[in-house]
Structure formats: structure tokens, C-alpha cells
């Protein structure tokens, strides 16, 4: 049987079994009924035949015995005595209103009235009747004035017929049961390859691409298994090729990003030298130089984001867990980027185990996105609720339609293609990848005309307060002298 997964008897198997049983029951019943009826008919005819023979003999004997000159009563007595010696029947005689009988339970009056009428007309006749629950074949005839009735008991005959019936019924029941068993077996053996194939298809669907069916015989199922395996081969090949292509593409992206890094590093340096001399440039050179500086900054962001996303794709993102205070981190991030006067920050400090650098990047990407698309009035809230820790970034900008919302985390997706912002188009995708790397999620709510809200949700481990130390807990430094020129 299948080693892939336990086979559940399906409806088809049940139906096949039932059909088998029905066919067996119907044909068996017809056969049994037919043979029973034939047997019964012949036995009953046989019984009548024998009874009539015996009766004719009896009547001849009676006509001899009942001949005068003997007194009627005496003659009847002799007749009954003589007949009683013969077994198999009881005799009742009715002569001139007098009844005689060879058995105490039998009387001439018990003969069925139809029979009596026929006998009185002088015919030899028979009819079946029951006396005290015992079946009799009654044969009647007339000898001069006397009506003679011979009661042949048929109890044994009917017993035998009853037995035959019981045997046939039991046989029929057995036949149906055997048919059911055979049907189930046949159905099971026939359908086993189907069950195996469906288990194999299921495991293929679950991603076990190496799943194959055992090669069958030369029947239809064998052919089926062969074509199933061909399909699985093709599928496995396709998927391998696809993921190979995807890996190649990712490698290419990564290579491109890394190759760009060197010239971009040079450009960034050159731009910072250039930007110090913008004031002293002739007016016609100054604007282009400013644009060059700005575009280089954009190019730098793009290359950095490309590198980051290719690193995330390659699964190279090392997560460095350490205790992080969410409120402090958010405050530092906002200050470091000079957004303090454009973003309203509120919320309680929440300490969690996370990766500081990645968290900072997520927050910066979300806030940067809000500032770019939402314009002024960006609100940032941190805290923890029943679900975990959260950072909520809300803007009151244009908002997004549901179609845009659906694709907002796609790479290089821009809700408004005509808008060429300073972002790389990868910020939200990177934020989401990072959030997932930290075991979190980013939820987004947006309504056209009302604004958008991005909520970073992070898992909160069993809360434990910072260990009490007598040292100062370093907040952000207030000294802005060494402002790192960040993103």
C-alpha cells in the first residue's frame, strides 16, 4: 500500500462495494427464489400425485369392503382398521350422517367445504387445508353412499421446504457479504493507485518536488503513473530553473549594487568637496553643480538601498539582539536626521530585545516616507499594548487609494509615477523585510484625503526591567558638534 500517507476510504470505494453487494443480492435472490419455487412446485405436485395414487387404491379397496351384505357400520370399521395399517394418512368416513375416523383428531367435517361439494358430486378431488395447525392434503372420494376423506399430513414436506428456504436465505446473505468483501477488496486494489497519486500530488503541492509515483505495471495505472512522473519532472525542472533564474537575478542585483558602490563612493566624496565651493561658483555653473550634488545624494541612497535589499534577499541579514528602548531610539533617529521640528514624537519608553540598527532604519524609512508623501504634520507614537510593542507613524497628507495601498510595499512602486521624490522606491520594501527579520510586521491604514498611518509591530518578550546598575543610562548625546551627515 501507499507509504506516502494513509488512504482514507473514499466515496468511490464505498460506492463500488455497495454496487458489488447489490448485484450479488439481486442475482442471488432471483436464483434462490427461482430454485425455491421450482423445488416447492415439484414437491407439492409429487405429494399430490402420491396421495391420489394412494387414494385411488384406497377407494377401490373401500368399494370392495363396503359392499353388502355386511352392516354398514361394521364394514366401515373393518375398512378403517385395514387402512390404518397403512401409514402416511388418516381416514375419515361419512356415511348417512354418521362420521367415522381412524384418528381422534380427524373428522370428515374437517374436510374443506369445496372439497365436500365436489366429493358429493362423485368426483375424486383434493384440497389442502390445516387442522390444528398441521397442514394436510385432503383427498376425498365417494364409494356408493359413503364419502371417504384421506388426510395426508404434509407437515414434513412443509418443514423441508422451510428448511430449504432458510438455507437459501442464509446462502444469499453469505453471498452478499462475500460480494461486499470482494467488492471492497477489488475497489481498494483498483483505487489504491488513485489514492497514491492523490497523496503524491498533495506532497508535490506542499513543495516536496522530488515526489514520484512508484512505476506501475503495464495497465492504465502504470501509464498514468508514468505521465504523472513526467509531469513532476517537468514541474521540478521548471521550478529549479525559475529559482535559479531568480537567484541569478538577485546575484546580478547584488553585483550591480556592489559594482556601483566604488564609483558612487568617489562621487559622494567629490560632491562633498564641490558643495563647499558652491558659493564661489559663477552663477551659470552653480545651479548645475547644486543639481549634481543633490542627484549624487539620491544615487547614493539608491545604491545603499539596493545593497541592503540584496543583502536581505540573500538572507545575509545578521540580527544583533540587544535591549533597546524604543522611545530613546526613535528620538535619536529623528534628531540624527534633523527632523525634530517636523515630527511630533510622543509615547512611553518600551524596552525590548531587538536590533538597534535595523530598528533605526525601519523608523527612518517610515518617517522619511511620511515626510515625503504626507508633507507636514507627521506624528510618531511609540508604546506597547496587548499585542506587543509598536511604533506608529501618521501623516495627514493625501492618503492612498486601496489599489495603491495593496502595492505600497512593492519594490520601486510609486503611488504617483509623476512624482520623483528623493526616495529610492525601496524604503518601504526594506522596512518591511527588516520588520519581518525582527519577528514583526508593518500594518498600514490609509484613506484618500485623510492621510496614512504605518504601524510597526514588534514582538515583546516577557517584560523585564533593566537591571539596576548604579551607572548612568546613556541617552542620546546632546552634543551636535559631530553631526554625522546621515541619510
Amino acid at each position, binding site marked *: 500500500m501507499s507509504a506516502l500517507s494513509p488512504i482514507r476510504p473514499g466515496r468511490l470505494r464505498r460506492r463500488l462495494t455497495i454496487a458489488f453487494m447489490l448485484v450479488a443480492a439481486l442475482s442471488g435472490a432471483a436464483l434462490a427464489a427461482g430454485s425455491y419455487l421450482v423445488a416447492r412446485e415439484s414437491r407439492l405436485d409429487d405429494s399430490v400425485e402420491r396421495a391420489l395414487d394412494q387414494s385411488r387404491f384406497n377407494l377401490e379397496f373401500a368399494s370392495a369392503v363396503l359392499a353388502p351384505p355386511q352392516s354398514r357400520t361394521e364394514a366401515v370399521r373393518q375398512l378403517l382398521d385395514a387402512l390404518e395399517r397403512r401409514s402416511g394418512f388418516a381416514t375419515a368416513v361419512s356415511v348417512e350422517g354418521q362420521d367415522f375416523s381412524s384418528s381422534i383428531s380427524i373428522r370428515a367435517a374437517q374436510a374443506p367445504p369445496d372439497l365436500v361439494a365436489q366429493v358429493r358430486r362423485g368426483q375424486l378431488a383434493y384440497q389442502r387445508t390445516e387442522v390444528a395447525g398441521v397442514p394436510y392434503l385432503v383427498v376425498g372420494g365417494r364409494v356408493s353412499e359413503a364419502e371417504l376423506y384421506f388426510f395426508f399430513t404434509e407437515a414434513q414436506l412443509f418443514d423441508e421446504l422451510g428448511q430449504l428456504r432458510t438455507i437459501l436465505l442464509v446462502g444469499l446473505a453469505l453471498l452478499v457479504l462475500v460480494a461486499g468483501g470482494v467488492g471492497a477488496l477489488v475497489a481498494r486494489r483498483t483505487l489504491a493507485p488513485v489514492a497514491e497519486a492523490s497523496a503524491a500530488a498533495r506532497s508535490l503541492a506542499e513543495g516536496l518536488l522530488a515526489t514520484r509515483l512508484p512505476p506501475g505495471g503495464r495497465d492504465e495505472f502504470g501509464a498514468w503513473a508514468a505521465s504523472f512522473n513526467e509531469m513532476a519532472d517537468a514541474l521540478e525542472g521548471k521550478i529549479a530553473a525559475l529559482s535559479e533564474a531568480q537567484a541569478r537575478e538577485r546575484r546580478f542585483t547584488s553585483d550591480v549594487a*556592489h559594482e556601483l558602490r566604488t564609483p558612487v563612493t568617489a562621487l559622494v566624496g567629490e560632491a562633498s568637496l564641490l558643495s563647499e565651493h558652491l558659493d564661489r561658483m559663477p552663477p551659470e555653473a552653480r545651479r548645475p553643480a547644486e543639481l549634481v550634488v543633490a542627484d549624487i545624494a539620491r544615487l547614493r541612497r539608491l545604491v545603499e538601498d539596493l545593497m541592503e535589499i540584496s543583502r536581505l534577499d540573500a538572507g545575509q541579514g545578521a540580527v544583533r539582539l*540587544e*535591549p533597546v528602548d524604543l522611545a530613546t531610539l526613535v528620538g535619536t533617529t529623528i534628531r*540624527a536626521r534633523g527632523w525634530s521640528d517636523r515630527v511630533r514624537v510622543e509615547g512611553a519608553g518600551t524596552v525590548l530585545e531587538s536590533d538597534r*540598527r535595523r530598528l533605526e532604519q525601519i523608523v527612518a524609512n517610515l518617517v522619511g516616507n511620511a515626510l515625503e508623501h504626507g508633507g507636514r504634520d507627521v506624528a510618531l507614537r511609540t508604546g506597547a499594548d496587548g499585542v506587543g510593542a509598536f511604533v506608529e507613524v501618521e501623516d495627514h497628507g493625501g492618503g492612498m487609494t486601496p489599489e495603491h495601498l495593496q502595492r505600497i510595499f512593492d519594490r520601486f512602486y510609486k503611488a504617483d509615477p509623476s512624482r520623483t521624490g528623493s526616495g529610492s522606491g525601496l524604503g518601504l520594501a526594506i522596512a518591511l523585510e527588516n520588520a519581518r527579520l525582527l519577528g514583526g510586521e508593518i500594518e498600514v491604514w490609509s484613506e484618500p484625503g485623510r492621510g496614512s498611518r504605518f504601524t510597526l509591530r514588534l514582538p515583546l518578550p516577557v517584560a523585564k526591567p533593566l537591571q539596576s546598575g548604579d*551607572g548612568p543610562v546613556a541617552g542620546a548625546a546632546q552634543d551636535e558638534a559631530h553631526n*554625522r551627515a546621515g541619510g
Partner: protein
Amino acid sequence: MDERVLLVEDDSSIREVAALGLTQAGFAVTTASDGRQALLEFRQGSFDLVVLDVMLPELDGFEVCREIRRESRVPIVMLSARSDTVDVVVGLELGADDYVTKPFELPELVARARAVMRRAGEDPPEQALAVGALEIDPAGFEVRRDGERIELTATEFRLLLELARRPRQVFTRELLLERVWSYDYLGDSRLVDVAIQRLRAKVEADPKHPTLLQTVRGVGYRLDPSG
């Protein structure tokens, strides 16, 4: 007097622009374009700072770093391709004092260069400290353990001094980054962790079971003079 910087970078554009930026910031810059040339230059002159790219022809940045550390405790700033791989940690473990990730902006490089050199130089004269078996002499830039001289880099020395000035006090990584590395915000806390490891290897009797430089889980580090 201008501080002398040895800039090692194989890409000519980056080399030239970084040299320009450092020169404009007041450094005297010597350049080298591969690892071998870097070591030659380093041995010929005397430098206050080495800015070292990781990916170099001939001899890579790690090798150069290792060689320089064998001979000198001059501050070293690595130019790293990326910040979250082993590159950075390997560089720090080999004795680099700090790193800058490409692509970087010139002010960032200059700020790092100044910060790392401030550690090595301009210390106000200070009384010698005795912490357990250690003797720290800020004026002479010297540390002795049971009278025996221990070679520390500028960063390691500043870190030890910072911890030793307030024994038993717990320092968070952020605070140490600010005081020793001059990071205002979001410095890489691996700088602290690796420097503590290197320091332990030099000053602890048994570096695997540190008693002097203790980790306070979830918070930071402290120096326990009884250790």
C-alpha cells in the same frame, strides 16, 4: 603641525577625493594604492593615522592591519564595504579602532579621523591611577600589570581609562561610544564589544573568565578593581 595620515585605497577616484578632503581638513596625506605599498610607506614615514580600505590588491586590508598592529599602535580607521557583515568585526578584532562604511561622505570620514586621533593625543595631564594589579599612567600613555608594560592601542587605552576613572560604575555601550569613540548617536555597539574583548585579552589574568572587566548583562560594562 599637521597630522600625517596614510590613506590606503585602490580606487584612484576615491583615493584622490578622500585625499583632497583630508588635506582640506588640515591633514598631511600620503597615499598608497595597494597593501604592499601601504606597508612600505608606513615603514618609511611616521603617521598619526592610517585610513585603510579592506579590499586591496596584493595584500588585503586585514593583512595590512595585522602587520601594522605588530609594529605600532597608530590609530586605524577601516573603510568597509558594508556594515553588517563579518568585515567590520574582523577588522576590529585585528586592532582597527573604528570604521567607515562605503559610500561615505567626506565630513564623516574627517569626523572619524579626528575622533580617533583625539583619543591618541591631546589628553589633559592626569594623575596615574592604580586599579587592582593595573597601573595606568595617562601622561605617559602607559599601562603596567604587576610592573610589566602592556601595549595598548589608543582606543583600548582610552576605554580602560574611562572605565578606571569611575571603578564599579556601570557604563552603557552608548555612553562608552560617546566618550571613547565620540559618537553622538547610534554608533555601532560592536565597536565597544570587540574593544572590550581585546582589552580583556591584554589585561585579564584569565581572559576567558574576566574578573576585572565585567559584563553587566543587558546594560554594559564596568571595571571591578578587586578582580
